[in-house]
């Protein structure tokens, strides 16, 4: 027992102060939200479109448009672009309430906040989620799971992952939704009582990601269920997921 107490003293207090204090610092090489520079593309250049593994980019009128819902943040577009039209910031705040909101337009600066007063009223103080991995590679799952550790301590916001959909207010879904998981996902959703939420996490869940063209998978959660919150990334950094959840329940 004395050893346990000694270890406790040694390990110290590790929960971050965010959102009351500063946000955790992103690694210097972190690839966050893309920044698009309008009107800088050279004529007929499709270098970024050709380089993108998930068809996340389109070029219109000399400007690139990037779909954060498809982006796997590999920076291949940035490396391929001869005119510096695409760069990536260290901004981790990327969650959106609509699928359309994930499409970045050239010149976009800050993301709009997520306005949903109903959700704040219903779940602002207590949100229980059941996680469903439907073809996720365990990266999104792992960085969702990490929010439960003492460093992030999701419980302090009243958010908790529960074992049964019957105890949940909503689902947090990862993966492109494989054909083999479709039925289980539908049943799990049906087992959650109304009113209920669906949160899609990661490029696969948002758009099918790398697997969008596969017969074995769907093109993300929206093929199956209505989605209330979209959190981009491959996988999203825990800060991105936390930011999305806190915006959803109106805590920030």
């Amino acid at each position, binding site marked *: 027992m004395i050893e*346990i107490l000694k270890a406790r003293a040694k390990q110290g207090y590790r929960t971050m102060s965010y959102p009351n204090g500063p946000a955790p610092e992103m690694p210097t090489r972190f*690839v966050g939200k893309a920044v698009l520079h309008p009107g800088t593309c050279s004529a007929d250049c499709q270098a970024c479109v050709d380089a993108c*593994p998930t068809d996340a980019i389109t070029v219109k009128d000399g400007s690139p448009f990037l779909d954060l819902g498809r982006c*796997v943040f590999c920076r291949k577009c940035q490396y391929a672009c001869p005119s510096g039209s695409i760069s990536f910031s260290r901004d981790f705040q990327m969650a959106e309430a609509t699928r359309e909101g994930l499409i970045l337009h050239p010149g976009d600066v800050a993301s709009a906040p997520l306005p949903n007063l109903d959700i704040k009223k219903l779940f602002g103080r207590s949100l229980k989620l059941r*996680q469903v991995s439907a073809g*996720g590679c365990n990266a999104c799952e*792992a960085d969702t799971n990490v929010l439960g550790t003492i460093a992030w301590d999701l419980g302090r916001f009243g958010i908790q992952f529960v074992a049964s959909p019957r105890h949940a207010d909503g689902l947090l879904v990862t993966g492109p939704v494989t054909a*083999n998981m479709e039925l289980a996902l539908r049943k799990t959703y049906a087992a959650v009582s109304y009113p209920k939420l669906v949160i899609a996490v990661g490029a696969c869940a948002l758009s099918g990601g790398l697997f969008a063209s596969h017969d074995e998978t769907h093109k993300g959660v929206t093929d199956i269920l209505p989605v209330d919150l979209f959190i981009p990334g*491959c*996988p999203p950094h825990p800060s991105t997921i936390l930011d999305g959840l806190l915006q959803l329940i109106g805590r920030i």
Partner: protein
Amino acid sequence: MAAGRFLPNEGIVPLSDVPQLAVSELRQCVLADIDDGARLVALFGCPSNATLRLFAVLAHQYLGQLSVASTKVTGSYPALTPECPEAHLFEREIYEQWGVEPTGHPWLKPVRFESRRKWEGARPHAANQSAVCGEIDFFQVEGEEVHEVAVGPVHAGVIEPGHFRFQCHGETVQHLEISLGYQHRGIEDAVVRDSGKRTLHYMETLAGDTTIGHTTAYCRNVEALTGTDLSARAEAIRGIALELERMANHIGDLGALAGDIGFLPTLSYCGRIRGDLLNLTALLCGNRFGRSLIHPGGVNYDVDEEIAEIMRERLQSIWRDAKSAVDLLWRSSSVLARFEGVGALDSDTAQAIGLVGVAARACGLPRDVRQSFPYGIYKKAHIPMAIGQNGDVMARALVRWQEIEHSTAFVLDQLDSLPSGSPSVRIGKFPQESHLAVSLVEGWRGEICHVALTRQADHYQGYKVIDPSFHNWFGLALALRNQQISDFPLCNKSFNLSYCGHDL
């Protein structure tokens, strides 16, 4: 293998030079080699017009060599499984993917409920095969007080899906059958279909927690095929990344094991420490799982002196925290009582079913690619092999802890003596002729095997991935026999296998 073609780890051989034997000869040579202590690392089919060419890759540990042989089959062939249990899942897979039946296989159930692949010799699924994932004729135990427990695919925790069917007598598990496939995304097929800009990303997501392991295995195949020599610096950085991946997952597992027996201090500390280790990988490449770090020809990000210094400092502090957190386990009699003797596998069983990685080493089997088939940095810097003896939860926990210790020392050592050179070189040209390339990497769960069959240049006619989980899930099923059903989470976590790595 008398009739097989020998090649080293990350060796290549022209497809025309892969011995093509009669089915009976292939069976004989596989069985004889396994009798001699070789291990089946891969057995898979690749269509050649209307016949299926079966390839067997064996690992001859004491020679430090691999061998490969093949045969051509149509309709059916006599199964290896009755005499060679470690072939059982490979043969089920061959049947599911190609419809070629290994006759005499005792357990020809679906592996992942994938639809049959399209090829000239294809025939439709047999009528008794369900298209609904998880719907199979589960083995049942009958008798008074016998009951059945079904768990999954959606089961407690933030975890991937799988179905577990227990046959219990009271609290005692008499039999566990594991039915997977829910995570099947069709990656192997996609690599063949559109060799191109997505391939490397597919490798990064085969099992997201093993991004470094799988991308390394893929890149080594490409580098072997193109005759590309990496710089010593790139090899060292890849080694650092692989060991960081191992440490992060192992420390997370030790914490989760503590959680499964309700020992909260270690659970809390290790969860955080795991994050600190993932952040070291993010320091390296911006992503906590090592996405975009490795590519054919080297690594995308260099470790400069500043990063090396930060990493060294943080790793030393992580090591101190980890030691204080994990030592609590070994000093607590209540923990030892719950770890020791639970979920034990004996080494004969482990050997027979072809267990790999942490689970095999915990049974006393010295299986570690880094030692037996060293590649890259491991040719120069040796990591001691951690060996357990009882094959129980305790042994698997101890092996993990020793490996954290060894990996920490290795990374610190590498950071102190990073060779100079460019972190990335341009890769050479793929050979025009069809080739076979095999690469083995010791991921944190165990042996990762990638076999590439090129058609011409960089187009693949077959790409086979064997995640260590493919070998080990059956080990978990056997470890549960005669255990309390309430010990399932503990046993499951002590193996901590990948669902998507199995289902691909």
